[in-house]
């Protein structure tokens, strides 16, 4: 399959790059990325991946667009309030770039469906754009079990963090954070607030990691936790080692099946 003249023009700024070229752009067009959570992180990540021409983008979210989402979830317009997020996001992407096929999953991931969703299109890379710990651990464990790379991220107030998991190449999320904090100990975005642009910065980094993985270029954030503080405008890149005692990816894992941790009552609502 070769690129059309329209594609050569649309992706010209990519193709000119030594690290991409026509072959790299073709890899992007053949790429399959699953975005779990179409919120502050997932919205900008989805848009950049769509603009880049990632051929298949799966989006998982069971929520509807809320007026309070629009301060940061830039894939939605005011008239989308009340619509299912996945379908609204799919419409936006369709009008951005018809090279992209969006697979909407209007459901909440849990231990019963996450494996099927990842298998559905045999996604190359997974982006965790969720707002709660139980699902972050669920995504981590599922990706460890399936040997799938994923980008973790979280944002709150003026802070964000992100790391990339590559199978057998450095730590998983559980190597660092063993178990979810008790429900309601850590505030959610809804309770604590978040500067809208935090999702743009961190979600764009997640999209960058997905593209680099698809292209096979550069160094990813495996083995590091990148921490961003917008108030002081500092990035800290903390080296993290694989934990041989990790309960899911260590030498003798005690976790061998997926776990649905308890989700606190309010944290689920629109983070």
């Amino acid at each position, binding site marked *: 399959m*070769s*690129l059309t003249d329209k594609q*050569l023009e649309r992706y010209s700024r990519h193709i000119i790059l*030594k690290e991409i*070229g026509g072959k790299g752009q073709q890899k992007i067009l053949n790429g399959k990325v699953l975005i779990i959570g179409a919120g502050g992180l997932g919205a900008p990540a989805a848009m950049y991946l769509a603009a880049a021409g990632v051929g298949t983008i799966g989006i998982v979210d069971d929520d509807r667009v809320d007026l309070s989402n629009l301060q940061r979830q830039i894939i939605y317009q005011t008239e989308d309030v009340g619509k299912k997020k996945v379908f609204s996001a799919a419409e936006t992407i369709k009008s951005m770039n018809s090279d992209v096929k969006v697979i909407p999953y209007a459901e909440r991931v849990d231990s019963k469906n996450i494996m099927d969703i990842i298998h559905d299109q045999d996604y190359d890379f997974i982006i965790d754009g969720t707002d709660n710990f139980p699902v972050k651990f669920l995504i981590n464990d599922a990706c460890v079990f399936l040997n799938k790379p994923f980008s973790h991220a979280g944002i709150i107030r003026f802070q964000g963090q992100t790391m990339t998991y590559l199978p057998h190449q450095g730590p998983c999320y559980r190597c660092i954070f063993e178990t979810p904090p008790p429900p309601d100990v850590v505030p959610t975005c809804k309770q604590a607030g978040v500067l809208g642009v935090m999702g743009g910065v961190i979600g764009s980094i997640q999209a960058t990691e997905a593209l680099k993985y698809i292209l096979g270029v550069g160094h990813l954030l495996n083995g590091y936790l990148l921490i961003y503080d917008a108030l002081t405008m500092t990035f800290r890149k903390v080296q993290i080692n694989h934990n041989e005692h990790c309960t899911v990816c260590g030498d003798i894992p005690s976790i061998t099946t997926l776990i649905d941790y308890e989700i606190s009552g309010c944290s689920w609502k629109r983070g």
Partner: protein
Amino acid sequence: MKADNIIDITNVVCPVTFVKLKIELENMKTGKILEVILNEGEPIANIPRSLKDEGHKIIDVTNNDNGTYTLFVKKDGLV
């Protein structure tokens, strides 16, 4: 000079000029020669440098005196 392939990029503007050229070179084997016909001005000013940056060798440049130039490029000739 005998080229293995020929491409005319006088009908497109930057950056599509270089994009088309790059795709053509990607599909050729190392050491093969590509003949390129390009416009004076921006293309002739920029394309030779971009080709060198990517490791291709410019073997010959001819001004055709009709607003176009002809380049002979050896794929990966600088690698």
